[in-house]
């Protein structure tokens, strides 16, 4: 189109020039294909495309008109016309239904992919908060941090960075947000390293760098993570909803049946023969295809609803429970770091705790959907209760004025918030995997069904077109 931009501005008078041979550079073996491209912008300027499409080309139009009138005149002509209409209706139905079902299969695939992305984002979220809980916890005890905790911090940061890369290639629409998240995470890690370096020199500014890193994480990275979760959850729900939208098939099918039926009635009246086998066959083919298409759609609809209500909702509930749990854990450490001023952090801890409990409760009825494999929800609740108990003991100590004892309790390796929390997080990670694979598996069935049905509808539409054309041709022959 860009080869002759002047053609657009020259106006109708010069329009004919647009069909002139292309510039020398475009000639040669490729000229044949280039020529129409040059002509493309011209219709806007008037009269280049074949005349039947344009009021300006009177002689050509007359020629086509004569042909059409000749073919369409008289009863055979009308038969041809209605026959063509019936064939077009059948083909449109076949195409619309097949496209509709194919899109539905694609939507199911995308629903699975966006749910995978939700899980990826949640895992980044959990890792980021886990890293923060580790890093802040390290500042609780005097001297060097526990090597195991430091290793856990490094592993969490590394995992988060790797998952960000994976998520960015999985969903280009998340690219900008993930790039911003990556930069926020780098800033965070840099501040933590600075905090650690200052801390090793025994300087109080180390803690200031640490709290600045934590609050920066919550004002920059957390909103991006929330946005990513929201966007992908909405995409996933949207795709599941779109997968069962069958109206194009229904409309095209009903129209095709109506057209075939009306043409049959007209033909029966004209020819005084009740049954035209071709048209009847076409009508039955369309009707059967329409019904089976709708049945497949209804199956997809109930499968999609089940997936949305169970596996997707379950994955979301579980991953949200995990995120809330890590945030609770970070708030526990922050509450101890701001010694004697745990109140506001404890309020946040309680809110996160309530969220975890509610999410786990909502899961109980859904666990059977992944066949009971892995940990079930009540076991998760038990694991969480153990952590709650350990946390309460720490709070009792701190609130009673024994900050040192509270810190000792929070950082020991037996029956402490640390060990009970680790147990919960390991069990919940297994459960997330269970839900995720159940979701992938449950989407596969309806996807395959939709793909097969799409081909069936396409073939049925084409068959109906052929049948109706043959049926009409049979009658037209009788007029010869």
């Amino acid at each position, binding site marked *: 189109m860009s080869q002759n931009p002047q053609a657009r501005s020259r106006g109708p008078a010069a329009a004919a020039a647009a069909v002139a041979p292309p510039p020398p550079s475009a000639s040669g073996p490729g000229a044949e294909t280039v020529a129409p491209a040059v002509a493309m912008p011209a219709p806007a300027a008037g009269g280049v495309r074949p005349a039947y499409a344009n009021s300006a080309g009177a002689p050509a139009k007359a020629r086509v008109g004569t042909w059409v009138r000749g073919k369409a005149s008289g009863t055979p002509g009308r038969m041809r016309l209605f026959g063509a209409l019936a064939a077009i209706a059948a083909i449109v139905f076949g*195409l619309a239904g097949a496209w509709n079902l194919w899109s539905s299969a694609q939507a199911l695939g995308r629903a699975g992919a966006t749910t995978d992305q939700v899980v990826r984002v949640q895992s980044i979220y959990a890792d980021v908060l886990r890293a923060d809980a580790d890093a802040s916890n390290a500042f609780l005890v005097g*001297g060097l941090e526990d090597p195991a905790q430091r290793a856990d911090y490094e592993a969490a940061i590394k995992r988060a960075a790797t998952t960000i890369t994976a998520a960015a290639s999985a969903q280009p629409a998340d690219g900008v947000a993930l790039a911003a998240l990556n930069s926020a995470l780098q800033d965070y890690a840099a501040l933590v390293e600075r905090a650690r370096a200052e801390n090793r020199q025994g300087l109080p500014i180390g*803690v*200031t760098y640490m709290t600045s890193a*934590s609050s920066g994480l919550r004002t920059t990275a957390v909103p991006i993570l*929330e946005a990513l979760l929201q*966007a992908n959850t909405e995409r996933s729900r949207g795709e599941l909803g779109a997968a069962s939208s069958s109206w194009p098939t229904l409309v095209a099918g009903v129209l095709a049946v109506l057209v075939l039926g009306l043409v049959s009635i007209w033909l029966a009246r004209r020819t005084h023969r009740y049954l035209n086998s071709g048209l009847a066959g076409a009508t039955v083919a369309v009707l059967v295809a329409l019904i089976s298409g709708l049945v497949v759609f209804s199956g997809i609809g109930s499968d999609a609803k089940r997936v949305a209500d169970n596996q997707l909702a379950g994955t979301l509930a579980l991953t949200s429970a995990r995120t809330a749990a890590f945030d609770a854990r970070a708030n526990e450490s922050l509450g101890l770091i701001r010694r004697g*001023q745990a109140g506001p952090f404890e309020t946040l801890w309680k809110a996160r705790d309530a969220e975890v409990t509610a999410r786990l409760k909502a899961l109980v009825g859904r666990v059977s959907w992944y066949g009971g494999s892995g940990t079930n929800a009540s076991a998760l609740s038990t694991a969480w209760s153990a952590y709650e108990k350990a946390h309460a003991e720490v709070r009792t100590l701190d609130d009673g004025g024994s900050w040192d004892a509270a810190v000792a309790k929070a950082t020991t390796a037996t029956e402490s918030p640390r060990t009970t929390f680790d147990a919960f997080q390991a069990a919940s990670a297994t459960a997330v995997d269970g839900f995720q694979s159940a979701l992938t598996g449950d989407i596969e069935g309806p996807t395959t069904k939709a793909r097969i049905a799409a081909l069936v509808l396409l073939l049925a539409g084409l068959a109906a077109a052929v049948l109706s054309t043959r049926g009409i041709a049979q009658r037209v022959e009788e007029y010869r």
Partner: protein
Amino acid sequence: MSRMPRTRLPLWAAGTTLLLSLAACGAGGYAQTPLSPTPTAAATTSAAPTTAAPTPAASKCNPVPAGFNPLQTYDPLPSLPASGALTGRLAEIRARGYLIAGVSADTLLMGARNPLTGQIEGFDIDLVHEIAKAILGDAAKVQLVVITAGQRQSFLVNRTVDIVVRNMTMNCARWLDWPIAFSAEYYHSGQKVLVRKGSTATSLDDLAAAKAKVCAPTGTTSLAKLQEFVAKGVVPVTADTHTGCLLLFQQAKVDAITGDDTVLAGLATQDPYAVVPAQTAITAEPYGVGFNSEDKVFVQYVNRLLETTKADGRWKASYDRWLAPSLGDAPTPPTAVYGRQ
């Protein structure tokens, strides 16, 4: 017409092509994910908790009432009463078993957490332990509450803490507007500036001339003084604490920090590129222990204790340990002014 055979493709092929291209269109990309969630989403973020400090209404200190002396405090008790004879707030603390003190954990030398031991220590903290030892018989029976400069008054007013020992300047607004009470002066400080090594500025006037960005913590008398230089060109920047200011200084977000000489000495210790040039203090900052204004007997009790520690060398021992290396030999302890009614 020679191209016709090419366009007359079998119907099914055309249909499939159309089908696939339509399906491809339907797959269309999603809109870019925004950088923050849309408001409909339930926020699950944990914003850093903030404690809103009640702002005093119209000031009683504008102008300062005639004859008002911020250093003047209640008369000390004649002697420290026996633990069984304690009344009021003192009896409550005794019954509770520990003293709750609002302190700083990041003001090196005055009150800072030692990263190597995890303990908060400094000149202010020594005083807290003296008070706990006097009331409870054990210097360790203390709950140290780490507070920011801006929380000092409100935590006393709301009784979140029993006392505040956090380089707190005795002034009219704090005595009359909040109101809170002070013990006798236990340290005499003054406001100075900290600048980058190599800088020629030695005062807020110099910094104002250079239109410098100067940091002071929110809710401090240092910030109030700094605001007076805004008209001369200073750009004030605030942080939660003085160490927060040092963080901004290290990140080159501010050019200088202003604060009490004790605090600045602690900051300079942490950064070899930060120096407190020789200068005259622009303000007098008398430090007192802060109390809830209703705890008059508690104030009198601590005043008696301060008299004792200043007299028997405990005050000087604490000064020598924390401040002498940075600020030189111990001066004479500040003289208390009594007689407040």
